[in-house]
């Protein structure tokens, strides 16, 4: 087993490093959900590619898995939005505040 692992190490190590870097970007990168989702999809796609490469399998099932993951992300996001699990804790406050006429007229 170790012999086999050493044999594939030159190919495997860059893939592992790249995956870790991709994950790091998902966590600390731009806070755009769309970009984060595409990065997660890329990571999963790369992992599936790697698995297929080393196991000498074709990638027929990849698209199905990626579609399921994409759907899963969408379902989770919409569910969280629907249930308000990650809703902001900020509450609407309609307490009336008089508008300071003097301040708004300054400079006129």
């Amino acid at each position, binding site marked *: 087993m170790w012999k086999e692992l050493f044999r594939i190490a030159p190919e495997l190590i860059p893939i592992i490093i790249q995956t870790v870097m991709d994950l790091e970007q998902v966590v600390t990168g731009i*806070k*755009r*959900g*769309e970009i984060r*989702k595409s990065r997660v999809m890329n990571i999963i796609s790369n992992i599936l590619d790697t698995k297929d490469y080393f196991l000498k399998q074709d990638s027929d099932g990849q698209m199905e898995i990626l579609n*399921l993951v994409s*759907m*899963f992300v*969408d*379902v*989770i*996001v*919409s*569910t*969280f*939005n*629907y*249930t*308000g*699990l*990650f*809703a*902001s*804790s*900020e*509450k*609407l*406050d*309609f*307490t*009336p*505040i*008089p*508008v300071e006429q003097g301040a708004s007229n300054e400079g006129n």
Partner: protein
Amino acid sequence: MRATKLLFIISLLIMASCVGKDLTPATEVVYQGELIGNEDFTYASAAKVVEKCLEVKSCMELGQEDYPLPKIRGMRGGNAVECGSNDDGTPKLKLGCYTTDGYITVPQGADLEIISHECVHHWLYKSTGDADPLHSSNYFLSCSGGLSLTEDSE
């Protein structure tokens, strides 16, 4: 196929866990008027509400369009507002309501995220003439709520 069913069941369970919140109608108007405030009075959350609604407009790629902001009606006395009626004629209670006269009606103390949802209705109505009461537009997923798939979440 099995995984799809599993996803569906999981999402149903999560949603079901939040069903059962008692909604009581808010009946007293605290503030009514422009989103940013009226000539003499504004309200405590006005700036955040305007910011939220403009974020949604930008997310819907309508930032360049010159559509007017919605107006807002803040109610107190309950945690929901009347929004249309049920089949049996009783008032339908919701956490927020958008009407095509351009008003968003929300109860005092409601979550700020509700504004995002109602603003999607508003901008849809202004851009397409259909406020999409059945929520078929993807913008409800991508541009409203605490998690956003197409816009900055902070």
